Structures are given as structure tokens and as C-alpha cells.
């Protein structure tokens, strides 16, 4: 009458396709939610997904339903006080909807927001959809980079420490079998003949002696086959394989002179967060170096970078120089993918700007993958911007963008890393 089926081991993600359909349909709303949420994260906080909020009315599936007005009859349980003919006044502001007895909302059009979580993967995919790291494909294989030793089968020669015992003994057995096969066959035949003779009623002394002698010879021949031979030895073989490095270092350069206020720094911070998240999709390990500068540059930690205030003039080249020093010292450009991001309000000592330009062109840009400069200001551009513009024209791995408000950050970021088919080719 009944069959039991254990379905517990069946796949549990039957709804995955439908979930993806849902994400696909509401991509725009979800993207908006994602780009709103980016403003509230710490720089290296990437291990979590994100809560997505979508206004419920965008999600509703309309059907014809009864609206307001008219005559409504409703039966309720639990009468504790009413008698026939009782009249209960309606609350004054209510427009004829129900009797306030809990039947008011069967149309289900509340204004609550629909909140759900997406995974880290989905979150990053949405955040960086259609973006790519510039020059990545071109450079990834020619600037190679790291070697990995991998097992590459077995070979006949090698150092004793690499001997593979199992393989060697397998070889030994095979060799011994091969070298003694015919002798063993013969030996077996002799043994058979010998036992046949012994079974016989008559005596065959001489023949037996003859046979025993041959058996002895054969056995000694078999015994002479060596247990192990250099021929049997097998050594584990290793090969060096070139792997694209998965290490990247990201330099955050920021002007902390008096003209940079906390709001401007916040904007810069958000930009760095985005860059970090974006890089984390391509690289497993990312070092972040914070360099702040006024007239002098200094390497600092994250908290100091964003939150300590300094005053004084601005010499941007000091930061670039420090960056160059750190690269030479610690981050060999053969092993590291180097990215730079500079943020400033555009103020710089006028004489210093050409120096920045030449520093970039001669020293930094040949070593690094990509350098972006963002200028956060409401005012007109100054010398640094103009110099950098010239650099941008000649160097594809250099880009500058201008940010006025918080809202610009994400669009600007997208502009910087927009998929460019020309570049990719």
C-alpha cells in the first residue's frame, strides 16, 4: 500500500535555477542596493555577502482582487460581549475598510521592503559586472612570474632520496618474472616428470638422478636472478611549472594636507574599498600599502591613513618616490602585480607637478599594472591634473578621473574599469 523513498540525499538545491531567475529579473534593483551598500563597508571587509533590500511593490504580482467599499459580511469566533443589533462605530479615519477585525489586509499590498541575502560571490559579481582589470590578459603570461614544483611522473634516473619504492619493486617483480619465465616452465615440467616416475611401479634410478640434476641447475639459475637491479629503480620526477602570480599589492596614496577634509577622505576611502574588492576577485593575496603625504610621504596603517589630520603644504612627488622605494625594496615587479591609486583634492605645489609626471613615466609606470588618479574637488583643476592628463595620453595603464560627490564614486569606478574590447585584444 505504501512505498518509502529516502530522498534526503537528492540534491537540495532544486530552487537554484528559480533563484537565479529572480536575481536576473531584479538585477537593476539589486545593483542599486549593492552600490548603496558599498558605502558602508570597511576596506578589507570582503568575507561577507550582502543584504539586499527591494521595495515590495516592485515585486508584487498583480491579480484582480476586490477593493474597498461595498457591504461586507464576516463571521468571527469567540463572541464574549455582543448581542444582536449592537453597533460599533468605525474609527473616524478609516474609509470603509473592514470592521477593524483583522480582515483588512487580504489584498496583500503592504509597503514593507523585501530583504534577502546574496552570497559574497553573487555580491561581487553584481558589483563588478562588466568590469575588467585593464591590460590583464596581455600581461599575465609574459610577465611570469612564479614557479611551482609539480610532480611529473617517474624517471629512471635521480637522486636516492627520490626513489619511489613501490614503483621500483613493481619493476623488480616484473623483471624477475620476465627473466625466469621459461626456466620456471621447464622446472615445472621436470617436477611433473619426476613425480610421474616416482608413481611408476618400476624403478628409474638413473633417469631420476638425471632429472634431479637438471632441476638443481634450473633452481640455481633462477636464484641467480637478482632481487633488485639498477634497471628497476624509478625516481619521482619533479618539474618546474610557471604559474601566473596571484599576488598583488595595492598602493593607496593620499594627500593629507590641510586642504583635505574628512569628507573628502571618506570619498577616497570608498574608492579604495572598491578597488580592493575588485582586485580580490583576481588575486588571492593582496597587500595594501598606505602612503600618505603632505610635504613628506610616510607609510602608515589603515587607521592612521584615514583618520589622522595633518597640516601643511603638498608635495605629491614625495609619495610617488616613496612608492618607488617600497617597490624596489619589497615588491619585485616580476613577482607582484602592482596597482596604484592616488587620491587628492588636486592641490599641489606647482613646481612639483612636472616632477610627478616624470617620476611616473620613468620609474613607476613601467613596473606597475595600473595606476589611477582620482581628484576629489569641487573646484577647477590645477597643475597636477594637467600634467597627469599628458601622462594619460601616452600611457594606457594610467587613468585619471574626477569626483565631485559621493554619488560619483561608483560610476567613476565603473568608468575606470569598463570592459574595453580594444584593450583586451
Amino acid at each position: 500500500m505504501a512505498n518509502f523513498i529516502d530522498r534526503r540525499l537528492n540534491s537540495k538545491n532544486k530552487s537554484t535555477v528559480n533563484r537565479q531567475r529572480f536575481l536576473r529579473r531584479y538585477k537593476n534593483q539589486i545593483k542599486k542596493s549593492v552600490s548603496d551598500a558599498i558605502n558602508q563597508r570597511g576596506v578589507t571587509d570582503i568575507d561577507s555577502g550582502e543584504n539586499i533590500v527591494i521595495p515590495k511593490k516592485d515585486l508584487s504580482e498583480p491579480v484582480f482582487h476586490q477593493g474597498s467599499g461595498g457591504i461586507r459580511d464576516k463571521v468571527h469566533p469567540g463572541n464574549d460581549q455582543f448581542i444582536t443589533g449592537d453597533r460599533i462605530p468605525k474609527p473616524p479615519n478609516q474609509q470603509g475598510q473592514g470592521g477593524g477585525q483583522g480582515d483588512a489586509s487580504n489584498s496583500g499590498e503592504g509597503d514593507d521592503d523585501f530583504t534577502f541575502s546574496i552570497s559574497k560571490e553573487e555580491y561581487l559579481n553584481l558589483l563588478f559586472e562588466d568590469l575588467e582589470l585593464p591590460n590583464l590578459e596581455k600581461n599575465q603570461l609574459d610577465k611570469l612570474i612564479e614557479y611551482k614544483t609539480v610532480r611529473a611522473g617517474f624517471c629512471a634516473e635521480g637522486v636516492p632520496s627520490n626513489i619511489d619504492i613501490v614503483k621500483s619493486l613493481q619493476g623488480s617483480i616484473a623483471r624477475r618474472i620476465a627473466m625466469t619465465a621459461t626456466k620456471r616452465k621447464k622446472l615445472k615440467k621436470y617436477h611433473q616428470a619426476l613425480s610421474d616416475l616416482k608413481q611408476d611401479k618400476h624403478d628409474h634410478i638413473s633417469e631420476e638422478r638425471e632429472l634431479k640434476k637438471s632441476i638443481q641447475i634450473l633452481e640455481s639459475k633462477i636464484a641467480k636472478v637478482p632481487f633488485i637491479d639498477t634497471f628497476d629503480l624509478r625516481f619521482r620526477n619533479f618539474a618546474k611549472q610557471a604559474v601566473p602570480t596571484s599576488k598583488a599589492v595595492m598602493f593607496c596614496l593620499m594627500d593629507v594636507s590641510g586642504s583635505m577634509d574628512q569628507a573628502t577622505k571618506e570619498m577616497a576611502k570608498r574608492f579604495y574599498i572598491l578597488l580592493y574588492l575588485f582586485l580580490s576577485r583576481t588575486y588571492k593575496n593582496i597587500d595594501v600599502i598606505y602612503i600618505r603625504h603632505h610635504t613628506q610621504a610616510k607609510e602608515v596603517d589603515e587607521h592612521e591613513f584615514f583618520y589622522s589630520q595633518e597640516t601643511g603644504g603638498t608635495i605629491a612627488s614625495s609619495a610617488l618616490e616613496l612608492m618607488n622605494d617600497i617597490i624596489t625594496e619589497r615588491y619585485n615587479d616580476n613577482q607582484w602585480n602592482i596597482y596604484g591609486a592616488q587620491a587628492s583634492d588636486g592641490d599641489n605645489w606647482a613646481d612639483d607637478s612636472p616632477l610627478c609626471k616624470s617620476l611616473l613615466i620613468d620609474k613607476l609606470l613601467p613596473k606597475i599594472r595600473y595606476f589611477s588618479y582620482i581628484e576629489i574637488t569641487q573646484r577647477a583643476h590645477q597643475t597636477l591634473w594637467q600634467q597627469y592628463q599628458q601622462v594619460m595620453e601616452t600611457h594606457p595603464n594610467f587613468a585619471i578621473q574626477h569626483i565631485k560627490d559621493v554619488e560619483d564614486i561608483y560610476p567613476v569606478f565603473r568608468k575606470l574599469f569598463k570592459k574595453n574590447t580594444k584593450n583586451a585584444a
Partner: protein
Amino acid sequence: MITTNKKAPSKDTQRVKPLDDCPDWTFELLEQYQTEIARVAEHYRLDTYTNQIEVITAEQMMDAYAGVGMPIGYNHWTYGKKFIQTEQTYKRGQMGLAYEIVINSSPCISYLMEENTMPMQALVMAHACYGHNSFFKGNYLFKSWTDASSIIDYLLFAKSYIAECENKYGIDDVEATLDACHALMSHGVDRYKRPQKISLDEELKRQKEREEYLQSQVNMLWRTIPSANKNKEKSEDKYKLPSEPQENILYFIEKNAPLLKPWQREIVRIVRKISQYFYPQKQTQVMNEGWACFWHYTILNHLYDEGLVTDKFMLEFLHSHTNVVAQLEYNSKYYSGINPYALGFNMFIDIRRICEHPTEEDKEFFPEIAGSNWLDTLHFAMENFKDESFISQYLSPKLIRDFKLFHINDDEKNNYVEISAIHNEQGYKKIRHKLADQYNLSNLEVNIQIVDANIDGDRSLTLRYIPHKGIKLGDSKDEVLKHLHYLWQFDVKIVQENKEGEDDIIAQCPDKI
């Protein structure tokens, strides 16, 4: 001391070894309980489809939830949304998962959750595999509207057909078509005409033929070139479409929409068929749940009387049972209307009481069943009624008193609501009548019908809304109309008769202002 008749059965049961009542279930134990439950069910003449009992995990239960009762669903974002909603509320602990889901199919598929304890599994088996299952097989609505043996095949066909369409015509177009169909899903039902039985073989065979035939028909229909000097009188004796108002909007669209592609017609048909399949369930919620609750209660008590289950088992069972059939009162913080489980369960219990121990009042109200064989009466009630008629036939004054039912009349014109009936002599019939009305689908669902498709003119489609007790059509009408417009592709409008007897347009698409 205890009376002798209580002792007598206990002597008998001493020979019976009770089933293991440990909380952890095993497949062997499930099998044992199932066998006993099946035996008792047969004793009570419960006729069922073969049971297919599937043990699933909580995650799989959420998948099953998202599929709104379809074991095989086509892919659509709305199921993704339901899944995410279920997952969210479940994970936050705002909602527990149902103990079981049962599917009206042959064999009858029931899902048991892995987390349930053994007494729960027994409850669920009695409830779903014998209660619901026998209801699916016996009730006249299910008998005439659904074909349990072919539904799985049909759903499989639907899923693969829609997947194929997505490959051929793109996900976006298929999704838009499905969205439009879903908006009109509850208007894709033949309320009075019985549907043909659906079977996979025929469906596949006919599907291609139908595609071609339908398209040719539609083209013929719309080839009518309007005559140059046509006037109104003439057009009236011409072929009118539809010849009578049509309430099955999806059916009308499938057969008559001028510009739909063949595959879209097939999708409209699929949604329509699925809507039809669920139609009986909507109309028998109280009865179906009541019947299932009555039987899990009766069967497990029967096992207890036989000594097959222990006190410990019964305590846990009764705890869950009581939670399920509890009815909150109107002034409770958690009150959300009448609990169909409570109403249905108590009505079936009450019918049994009327049969076995009728009072004078019962004899007056139910002369034909008072004192009759309770099992015959119960089976008759299950087989031949739906919620509305079941309540108006069997709701007894005693139950009205037990539930302390009262009726509220809310007229828009008055600034008060009025208690028009309570649980007293004068109120019984009115309350029974009003409660039955509350389960009448034609009062709950919007009455909207296609009255005209102007095939000679601008091809506009006119629908008429007929208000029930002056209740207006809900605000979503404009949105729904957009979906209808997507399918029809010419102007659509909804009219409603005003006090002067003229038609007012209450919604149209595209919006002309």
C-alpha cells in the same frame, strides 16, 4: 476502582506488544506504523491511491514550498522569490515548516520531514497518506476536475516544453508570457464545464497539431476585412465574439488572441491547466483539512485503544494535534480569521456525535442523519460537498455555540458596523448561511468576464466587472490589464455599469487620458 468495561480491553491488549515509541524514527519503524495505520484505515473504509512516502530534509521542504505544491515545476522567477521568502522567514525563526506536504497524484506523494519525531511521522502518515489521500480520491470535485494519474506526466511535459521554448525564443519572452498568464491565472478556470482529462501521450501528440490548427483558425477569424459601408445594425447580426460572456479569460486568449505565437498559446494552455488542477483545492480547504485531521485523530486513537501505541506517544501526538486544531478568538493578538483545520475537524467530529448521540436539537436540525450510521454519513459528506455546501448542510447549533460565532455586517454607507447575528436561537441559521457564503469562491473572487472582442473594428477587447455587494475592483487592475494587453496586443478595457445603467470605463490599457 475503575469500571469494568475499561478493564476488559486492557486485558485483551496485554497480548499486543506496543510499537516502539522512541522519538527517533527508522525506516523499519515507519514501515510498522504505516502497516498498522493502513489496517485501521481500511477498517474505516478509507479508499486511497497507493502511497509514495518520501523522506526529505528541511532544505528540500523549502524547495517543495517554493514549488507551491507542484512536485515538478517549470522555471520561473516567482518560484525563486517564494523560495527566498521561505528561506528568510525560516532562518529567522519567524516560521516553522509544515510537517508534511501531500500531492494529489496517483500514486499519492507525501513528503515527511527528516526532523519529525516518530509520533509526528505517524501523525503525518495518518493525516496525509490516509486522510488527504482518501479525500483526493473520493471527493466529487477532485474526481471530476483532476486526473491524479496524469498530473505528474503533465507537469513534466510543461516543464520540458517551457524549457524548450526558453531555448528557442529566449528567457525574456517566455518569462513575460508566463508573467501575463500568472496575473490571469485565477481567471483561467472553467467553473461549470468539466475539463477533459489530460494525459501526456495525447498532450504531446496533439500539441503540434493543435499549434498549427489554432494558428490557422485565428488567422481565418481575423481575416474578415471590414466592409467599407458597414453600419452598426449590420455588425450586430454578424458573428459576435464571444457569443456569450466568457469568464475563462485565459481560454479565450488561447483560442482567440490574434497575434499570439503558437508556443505562447501552448504556455497559456499550460498555465490554464495547472490553475484548473488546483481549483478544487481552493474550494475544499475546510473539508480537506478537517477530514485529514479527523482521521489522524480517529486512527491514532484507535491504535491507542488497541494498545499499539503508548501513553508517551499519545501525549506528544495530542500536543501537536491540539496546536493544529486550535481556534483563536477574535480579540486575540494572533487572530487571523477562522482556522480551517479547527472548523473542519470539529465539524466532522460533530457529525459523528450527531449520528451516535443525537440531542433533541440535532433531531430537529438534522432529521436525516441523527442516529444514522456515522461512517456512512461521514463518507457521504466527504464525497458530495465542497466547503460552502458542507457548512450550509452540516454546521450545527452546538458547534456555533462552541465557537461562539457572531456575524458582523459592515456597510460602507454606515459609520458603524453592526452585529447582525450571534450564537442564539435566532442567529443559528443566519450565521450558518453567512459562514457558508464566506467560503463561496464566487463571492471571494472577482467576477470579471470578457464581453466583447471588436473583430470588425479596432480589435479592442472589453471586459465587464460585475461588483459583488458594491465592492470595487482592487487597485491592481491597471497592472493586470497591462499583462492582458501583452497577450491580446490591442486595446483592452474594463467597464462597469453605473447607477444609470450605462457602462463606465474603469480601466484601460494603453492608458488614454
